């Protein structure tokens, strides 16, 4: 076989190998799964009781169906999922730098982008499962009230949001490849989004002097569009402003992240720091 043409690994086979690797590793940490699921139940229960303090029909919740528990659960569940899209890629790069496996991955014939996306697949799939479970638990036990679901709205907002947050993830991974820590995208979009993006309270409650910051955050439009599509029985025209805003973010962030990633790989190879930590 030496010197002969060797089979080229397909992306799907590589992704499956990453999934199998991470699942096998996860199985060796026996209590991690249990504590993760317990966290979901506790979070739903916490918002269930907090919601009793907020009377139904509170004006600021009007555009989202009026029920605080449903508002908060959708916000937390989707913000966690988006957080994983945003943080998954830089986290796996950092983890591979620290564990020392990055170099062994990068000398294989698989492309760097395949390795990066493959590495982040299991955490993403697991977070999807957690989100579905959180919504399922909220529906079954805590009275999550869904409206008439706006399918096209959910699909459009969902797809554009995923692209947007993956782009931020690629930007973050590019930063980590070169500078290793101190990822500013994570701080700006992660921390600020939690406060100003309307995750657990409506953006309309913010003082006007800071509300404009919310309009610069993709999470604001993602959660607004998703809540209107799931809770408020809205039609597509009502979520169109969110769809347009997310598409604009994608138009800027997607090409920017791809260029940044290419430059980051080149710089790290040039500086000889690709696998440093």
């Amino acid at each position, binding site marked *: 076989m030496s*010197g002969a043409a060797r089979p080229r*690994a397909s992306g799907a086979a590589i992704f499956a190998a990453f999934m199998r690797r991470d699942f096998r590793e996860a199985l060796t940490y026996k209590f991690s799964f249990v504590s993760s699921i317990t966290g979901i139940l506790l979070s739903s229960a916490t918002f269930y009781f907090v919601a009793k303090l907020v009377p139904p029909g509170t004006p600021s919740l009007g555009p989202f169906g009026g029920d605080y528990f449903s508002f908060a659960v959708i916000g937390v569940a989707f913000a966690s999922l988006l957080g994983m899209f945003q943080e998954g890629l830089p986290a796996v790069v950092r983890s591979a730098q620290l564990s020392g496996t990055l*170099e062994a991955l990068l*000398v*294989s*014939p698989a492309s760097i982008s395949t390795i990066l996306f493959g590495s982040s697949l299991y955490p993403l799939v697991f977070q999807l499962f957690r989100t579905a479970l959180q919504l399922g638990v909220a529906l079954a036990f805590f009275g999550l009230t869904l409206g008439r679901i706006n399918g096209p709205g959910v699909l459009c907002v969902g797809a554009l949001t995923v692209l947007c947050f993956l782009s931020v993830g690629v930007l973050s991974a590019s930063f980590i490849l070169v500078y290793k820590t101190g990822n500013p995208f994570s701080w700006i979009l992660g921390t600020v989004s939690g406060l100003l993006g309307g995750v657990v309270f409506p953006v309309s409650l913010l003082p006007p002097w800071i509300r404009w910051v919310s309009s610069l955050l993709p999470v604001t439009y993602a959660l607004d569009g998703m809540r209107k599509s799931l809770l408020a029985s809205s039609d597509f025209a009502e979520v169109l402003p969110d769809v347009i805003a997310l598409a604009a973010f994608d138009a800027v962030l997607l090409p920017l992240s791809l260029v940044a990633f290419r430059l980051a790989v080149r710089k790290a190879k*040039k500086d*000889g720091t690709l696998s440093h930590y």
Partner: protein
Amino acid sequence: MSERPAILAENLIKRYPVFRGFRDLLRRPFDRRTVTALDGLDLRVERGSVFCLLGPNGAGKTTLIKILATLVLPDGGRASVDGHDVARDPGPVKSAVGYAVNDERSFYWRLTGRQNLEFFGALYGLRGRARDLRIAEVLRLSGIEAAADLRFNAYSTGMRQMLAFARALLADAAILLVDEPTRSLDPQAADRIRAFLREELAGNQKKTILWATHDLGEAADHADSIAVISRGRIRLHGTAASLAGGGRPSLRRAYEQAVGESEEKA
């Protein structure tokens, strides 16, 4: 000599940026200081040979290996592996080389040796029964079949190095880049590794091996060709017979002279 060499480097240059503190960055923000790792290195490794790259710490051995493995981009000159330029055409280079480093951190410690090989095998395009057969073969060659289903964290240092070889052999690459394979090993484990490289990989498998080491005895006993690298350049190059024909003492004299002269020039 007319056959295309397995590895060729011409006037290869690599300079790394020097780490600078905040104060220095504020004082001289546009100052770019570098340290030279490779300074116009020329190298030719013939197919099927065991080529030992001897040099002191910091001589440029690991930088050269990383450039050949496409992990680091050169700043000048050119290098090719199996006829493919490492900077312009890294894909075929990655398929042509097996990279065996003495870094136990490059494995997944909570997975077994076999599971590690299954994962890396997938990155090299191995699937299904072909993958399982290849893994069985490289485990047999490396002599760690019995430990294949133990978790990596239960492996001894010698077994970890053998698993690194097993991984490098997965794709059956014709060229192996081996960086200080006997570092941190006890004498018996080191001897097993040397015999494995010389007899099994070079002798039976007909691999080309670029073997970086600072162990003179290792080079004298196992290399076909030896090059002494110091301060980023090849200072001395010849067949093992010509450099170590008088045994280890003659190689030591040649090595010390070559390294000493490069230090004086610097």
